[in-house]
């Protein structure tokens, strides 16, 4: 699969768009080249036989922790760091 992979400027531009990341022309060029180099080095993963191997999403077995679903009072203001507030709301940019 990785053999047919083609990393180019267009792909990096598309990734930047979905990641909401404004990049300069220079950054686009540079990251494209670096991405190629990095992924080329990471190709060695292909050599590891992982047939019938389960992926490890965690290094140890993680069990969910439960607690009583009870309301609790916090003594801090969740909007305290925001400059874009209007009353008790955060004001965001236009959606369209």
């Amino acid at each position, binding site marked *: *699969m*990785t053999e047919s*992979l083609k990393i180019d400027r267009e*792909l*990096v531009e598309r*990734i*930047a*768009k*979905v*990641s*909401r*990341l*404004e*990049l300069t022309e220079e*950054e686009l060029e540079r*990251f494209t080249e*670096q*991405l190629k*180099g*990095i*992924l080329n*080095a*990471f*190709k*060695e*993963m*292909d*050599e*590891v036989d*992982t047939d019938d*191997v*389960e*992926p*490890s*999403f*965690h*290094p*140890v077995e*993680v*069990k*969910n*922790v439960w*607690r009583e679903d009870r309301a609790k009072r*916090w003594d*801090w*203001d*969740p*909007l*305290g*760091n*925001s*400059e*874009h507030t209007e009353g008790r709301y*955060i*004001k*965001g*940019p*236009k*959606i*369209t």
Partner: protein
Amino acid sequence: MKNVIRKATAIDEKFHVFNTIADRLEAEREGRLAGVAVSVKDNICTKNMETAAGSKILEGYSPPFDATVVEKCRNEGAFIVGKTTMDEFGFGTFNVNTPYSVPVNPHDTDRSCGGSSGGAACLTAVADFPHLAIAESTGGSISCPAAFCGVVGLTPTYGRTSRWGLVDYANSLDKIGCMAKTAAGAALLLSVISGPDEYDSTVLGVPDEDFTRRLVDSVEGLEIGVPDEYFAEGVDEEVAKLVWGAIKCLEGLGASIQNVSLPHTGVALASYYIIAMSEASTNLAKFCGLRYGLQPPLEGNFEEQFSKVRGRGFSDEAKRRVILGTFARMAGYRDAYYIKAMKVRTRVIEDFKRAFKEVDILAAPTMPVTAPRFEEIAEMEPIRQYMMDMLTVAPNLAGIPMISVPCGAVGGLPVGLHLMADHLREGELIQAAYAYEVN
């Protein structure tokens, strides 16, 4: 205690270790950390003290709460002296990837402290007051700077310490740990900060432990494995020689030595970076300049606004990791990269589990080289910088505990002996580190 802020300020002027220094003393309290100044890596929340995680996008962020580990220290009488500088979000091996202070190595100021907990390690080395450091590791960010600066760095088992209040980098890898001048200091701090937390569901349900009880001068009967792959190509000969000397010292104290093999050591690097970047790219999605940190005036629609804030607020390495991590999770590439990396991780964990059936702990160099010069780092391509993590990423991927202990110097630059143990076996590491240290 009164002199601590003054002393910390003087150290900062010389070594650039802090992003923020406490501006007032706290009332003295009793507890296991009474009279101890604790520094906190800049990505761990401290109430009303700026926490920017080394990033412009979080500049000015003043957390309204303490991270669990910080709260635990305060409850034991500690005074939080300040926030130590780091690579942005932990993205780096040399603590140069930050728009804030770049700390300099206490043994040669033309060289790096290592990263990403560089400020913590340097401060630990030079502090002339009672001090312990809370640091954090994702792929080696405690061990690496500890080795380069010549201090003890203890990375606990994944899930030993709560991550509530940590500006997360990669959730399946992040571990909050300790740095100290000695194994005793690290053992004390770990005893304070570990344990269950109702706010972090990934903390392992194991009882609190007093690790200072493991400060016993004996390694009699301890079986130490030496992984061949950790002395392979790329490891400096002088570094390897010193580490072998330390291993022989432990043998002389009654431990037995045997060679072991961890065949997936090399490929762990690729697996680690794919996983770390994938998780980082989702974690960084929350930074959009609306609720905290960098908040430019609202202009244009949300896509334009968020893209602009992130383009300005993230520096190079963060952008690179968002791009790579997003790529690795995209439809069409996900199986070949993200899922494949998770499967390779299973292989890496199997390597360690197999080794720990034979031996109690593993011993290796922490870093393949001593601290490089800043001018050398500036010439390294990103992939070459990543390759410097070749010895620390595998144990971090497996979530096993590790401790880096100073074991001598090459040309005046410290070298670290890296001891690794099976999950939740921090006690063995502390005991071996202590026995080595006192002999």
